[in-house]
């Protein structure tokens, strides 16, 4: 376990370095580079721009600039938001809660439903249920999240009036039940794709597990089928799901951005879009780097969790 942990953390470190190089490249790829914000407003002369560039150290060699940028990044100095005039990390932090709330709740929902569908589909392979689940999952993976969001709003908010059409809570209310009520719509919308993903992977994982010899052993012991299914099959089939959870994180983040936009959910995704609209450069770059690091951290955590959950790695 120790060497596994060390190796995995080392890999993550290397990846973080490459991720930062990509981020830095994007920053300088854009026409005007980090100055495009000032250039775009049009009320600065070329002289002014040159002065700002010198102030920002943009006249120095790129490797030096990169090293400095990375150093500031690692120290937590992510720049100041043009729009809020606040440190970028603080701006991100104030929007992170809403996004995490949405992502966690929809992941929970998707895991429960998706795993269940996957298990049932595997044990009743090629049944009507399995076929419908398979086709349904493929359609779910093909529906644009924003459109599904609009459909949900149209049906449940406009049509039936059951759910609020957006926001995290009613202004002036903000009670626990009110927040929950607002969470239902976006949570379902974000969970759709995840549910499809979970059900597909869970199904194939189950199919893999139930053909293993130890399932036959369990059966030869004469223990109830239900116990064979849950104690022996599902328990093993869930192990690879930990890795899937890590791999699914980028898709989930992308979905969250779109869902937040449709439901005017005040999370990181909306902040990102708004920042782009304002050409709030530091915030855009900050969120981009933040999400990439979140994904990196997620897959690292997933691997470590796998190591804890699987005795073959834990006790190695």
């Amino acid at each position: 376990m120790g060497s596994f942990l060390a190796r995995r953390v080392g890999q993550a470190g290397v990846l973080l370095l490459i991720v930062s190089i990509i981020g830095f490249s994007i920053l300088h790829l854009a026409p005007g580079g980090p100055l495009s914000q000032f250039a775009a407003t049009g009320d600065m002369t070329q002289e002014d721009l040159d002065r700002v560039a010198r102030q920002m150290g943009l006249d120095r060699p790129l490797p030096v600039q990169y090293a400095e940028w990375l150093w500031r990044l690692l120290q937590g100095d992510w720049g100041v938001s043009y729009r809020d005039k606040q440190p970028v990390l603080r701006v991100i932090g104030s929007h992170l809660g809403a996004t995490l709330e949405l992502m966690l709740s929809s992941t929970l929902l998707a895991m429960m439903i998706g795993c269940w569908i996957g298990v049932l589909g595997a044990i009743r392979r090629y049944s009507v249920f399995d076929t419908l689940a398979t086709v349904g999952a493929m359609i779910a993976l093909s529906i644009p999240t924003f459109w599904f969001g609009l459909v949900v709003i149209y049906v449940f908010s406009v049509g039936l009036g059951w759910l609020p059409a957006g926001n995290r809570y009613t202004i002036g209310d903000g009670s626990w039940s009110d927040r929950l009520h607002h969470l239902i719509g976006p949570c379902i919308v974000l969970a759709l794709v995840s549910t499809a993903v979970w059900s597909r992977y869970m199904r194939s994982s189950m199919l893999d597990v139930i053909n293993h010899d130890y399932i036959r052993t369990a059966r030869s012991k004469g223990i109830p089928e239900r116990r064979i299914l849950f104690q022996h099959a599902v328990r093993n089939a869930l192990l690879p799901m930990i890795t899937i959870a890590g791999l699914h994180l980028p898709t989930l983040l992308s979905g969250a951005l779109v869902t937040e936009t449709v439901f005017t959910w005040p999370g990181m995704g909306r902040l990102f879009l708004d920042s782009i609209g304002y050409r709030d450069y530091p915030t855009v770059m900050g969120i981009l780097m933040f999400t990439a690091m979140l994904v990196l951290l997620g897959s690292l955590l997933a691997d470590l969790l796998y190591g804890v959950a699987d005795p073959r790695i834990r006790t190695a």
Partner: protein
Amino acid sequence: MTSPVGAIDGPPAKPALTSRWDSPALRRFRRHRLAVFGAVTILVLTLACIVGPFLLPFTDTFIDIRQRFAPPLSGAHVLGTDQLGRDMLARLLMAGRISLAVGFAAMAISMVIGVCVGLVAGYYGGAIGAVLMRFVDAMLCFPSIFLLLAVSAFIHPGVETIILLIAFTAWMEVARIVEAQIKALRERDFAVAAEALGASDARVMIRELLPNAIAPIVVAATLNVAHAILAESYISFLGYGIQPPTPSWGNMLDNAQGYLTSAPWLAMLPGAMITLAVTSFNFIGDGLRDALDPRTDAR
């Protein structure tokens, strides 16, 4: 006498865990139906988008102020009109041209990048392979929509730039697939033999190795079209993709949210088109996967 042997929880009809003895014929047949459905849909859709606009009485840019928000099936406009009185069907077909073209073009470019990176990384391995594949891993850390939006916000988006952008964020999976295939293939006899005969690296890669890895590449290409169409719709919906007046399925939805109460078809129709097209490509991809590599079942 047939005994209810092996039934797990009582009656024999109850399905059970073990399933090694399935009928592949049955399976292929059903899978095939979906793939066939997908292929036919894409064919019809593509034809309609190419030919359709010439046959319609309205162009997609014709503004009929008196006929604003005409609901579908209510008059001259089969699928109704939008907020400016433009014919929805004509717009959907013209948007389809753009969306499908973006899908195919972005797929083609992303495949070229992915195959090249995968080939080189898989063939040379070692330091080159490690660096390339770590770069792939790093690119995959960025959620694609965030990456697309960040870049498209800085550059002025046109159809060509959008295609390039989507391609640049969609080649990594392909590179991974190709790298794994090539790595496995290059140990095999025919590759070793070709190398021993003095064939150049490029020749071994392209003539000997690549054709043997074509099955997963074809599957990935199909799925990549689906991905590209979705990606285009996302960023266009968010306002940073294809810019009006050029219609695309994604940007038709852009301001439809405001009319959700009064004219829901404005949002429903383009969304349904995206779903239909993407589902079809996914079906084809799934069918191809089964047909080309019978060993893999569900992912």
